[in-house]
């Protein structure tokens, strides 16, 4: 399995670097725009006050929302969204392609002719996904560490949550995408479904915070679980959300693994 993991990591390295640069680059860019905007906040707040309260809340602003004059609040509104959306997309793409690519490219015939069990193929690839996602967030966490400690008072818990809460969302998307890719192996199809989930869930998140009657929808979107408001205000991820996320990950991966073990792989 070590052999597979090593090789798989190498094959995915280029895209890992690219995505890491994009995500951490955008986060850093937004963070370092903070000093320039800080002084103009009074005007911005006047400007924002003309919007309805629900609308502001949807974006983490308003009376109960984040304080944009504080670096943690600023990041929650202006950079964190990129990390969630782009990181989530990367996770979905990675999760959807890691197994199905072998079938789509027909290299699976080679792999399965070697003495490695399907269980090891499956979990070897899952491990590569986890390693890649951890690495992305690790780089983001370093960017955040530098920004938070130079632009404000450093808060360890908030930093830690901002750095690694997105990993939870990414793992949820990667697991769901991987499960789908067991059924649909055409790379392009599975990719659009995976990205559809990533964007779709975000839309659900917006709707659930915009309309009171649709508030229950928040349980169905991992964007809500790791929302910046919880991170800054509560300094925690709610246990219920943590449990739901872990359950989704475990059930998706468990189902995908069981199906993969018994699947006819004819390319």
């Amino acid at each position, binding site marked *: 399995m070590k*052999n597979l993991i090593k090789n798989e990591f190498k094959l995915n390295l280029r895209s890992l670097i690219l995505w890491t640069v994009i995500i951490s680059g955008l986060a850093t860019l937004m963070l370092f725009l903070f000093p320039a905007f800080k002084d103009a906040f009074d005007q911005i707040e006047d400007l924002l006050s003309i919007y309805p309260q629900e609308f502001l809340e949807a974006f983490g602003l308003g009376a109960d929302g984040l304080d944009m004059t504080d670096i943690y609040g600023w990041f929650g509104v202006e950079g964190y969204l990129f990390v969630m959306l782009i990181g989530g997309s990367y996770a979905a793409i990675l999760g959807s392609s890691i197994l199905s690519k072998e079938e789509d490219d027909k290299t699976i015939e*080679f792999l*399965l*002719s*070697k003495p490695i069990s399907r269980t090891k193929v499956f979990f070897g690839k899952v491990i590569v996904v986890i390693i890649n996602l951890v690495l992305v967030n690790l780089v983001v966490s370093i960017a955040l560490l530098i920004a938070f400690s130079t632009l404000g008072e450093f808060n360890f818990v908030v930093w830690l949550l901002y750095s690694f809460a997105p990993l939870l969302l990414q793992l949820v998307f990667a697991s769901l995408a991987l499960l789908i890719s067991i059924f649909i192996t055409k790379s392009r199809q599975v990719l659009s479904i995976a990205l559809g989930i990533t964007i779709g869930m975000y839309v659900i998140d917006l709707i659930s915070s915009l309309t009171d009657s649709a508030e229950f929808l928040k349980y169905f979107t991992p964007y809500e679980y790791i929302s910046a408001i919880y991170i800054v205000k509560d300094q925690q991820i709610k246990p219920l959300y943590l449990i739901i996320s872990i359950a989704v990950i475990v059930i998706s991966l468990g189902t995908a693994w069981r199906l993969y073990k018994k699947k006819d792989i004819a390319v």
Partner: protein
Amino acid sequence: MIKTTNLTKYYHKNARGILDVSLDIKKGEIFGFIGPNGAGKSTTVRTLLNFIFPTSGSATIQGLDIINDSVEIRKHVGYIPSEINLYGDMTVQDFLDYAGAYHKNDFKVKQKELIKKLELDTSRKISDLSFGNKKKVAIIQALQQEPDLIILDEPTSGLDPLMQNTFFTLIKEEQKRGATIFFSSHILSEVQRICDRVAIIKDGKIIKVEKIDDIMKARAKKVRIKTPDDIKDLTNILEYKRENGHVSFVFTGSIDQLFKILSDLKVEDLTIEEPSLEEIFMHYYDREEK
């Protein structure tokens, strides 16, 4: 070495699979598995390697069950698929080392020897290789760990005649080393060239398992002669036709007999062709049934 008992595979959507395939392949033999495209050759191979699961029936390789002991089996199997699809971004050398690392035994010496024999440039990226060169990579990755069983699915497609020669020599050497070879193909002449025994599969069913010599005896030739004469004695002659100054027929007797027939004719021109596999099936088995 390989024993299958009523191995059956149905695909969904009524796609053809295999039905009651029972084979017994002995250790050390080169066993040909021949049939037209779509007859079930690849399905059989993929079932043996557990890429797909049989609907019913069972099979063992070296006494090990193809489903439950698949990983153990694959430690001792080298497989060359019909279509070669490898990781395009890797260099040949990296790929071969990656493939070898799945096996415990030392493969580097044999790998170098094979690379030299097949004249392969291992510094190149796989995606830059021609089809023939990709095939060579597939051959090396299968043979470098000196497997006990070599499964070949249409292995010569894409190789030029010279390389085919080298390949057959390699396979013969593997047999001498003690390997068993399961050789699936739709080209009779190449099976005839190296196999000891052959199973003929058609529409998913094994029609016959025979020694290659016996098949050869019954082997038909397509003969077309430009001659004004007619052939009187039609023993061993099928589909006798005369048109435009030519006679044509399928001859199922020996070459020696054919020469005797020809010597009685005024032959102006002559072509002798190998019939296609389908034609052999038709003529040989029609005759058997009669």
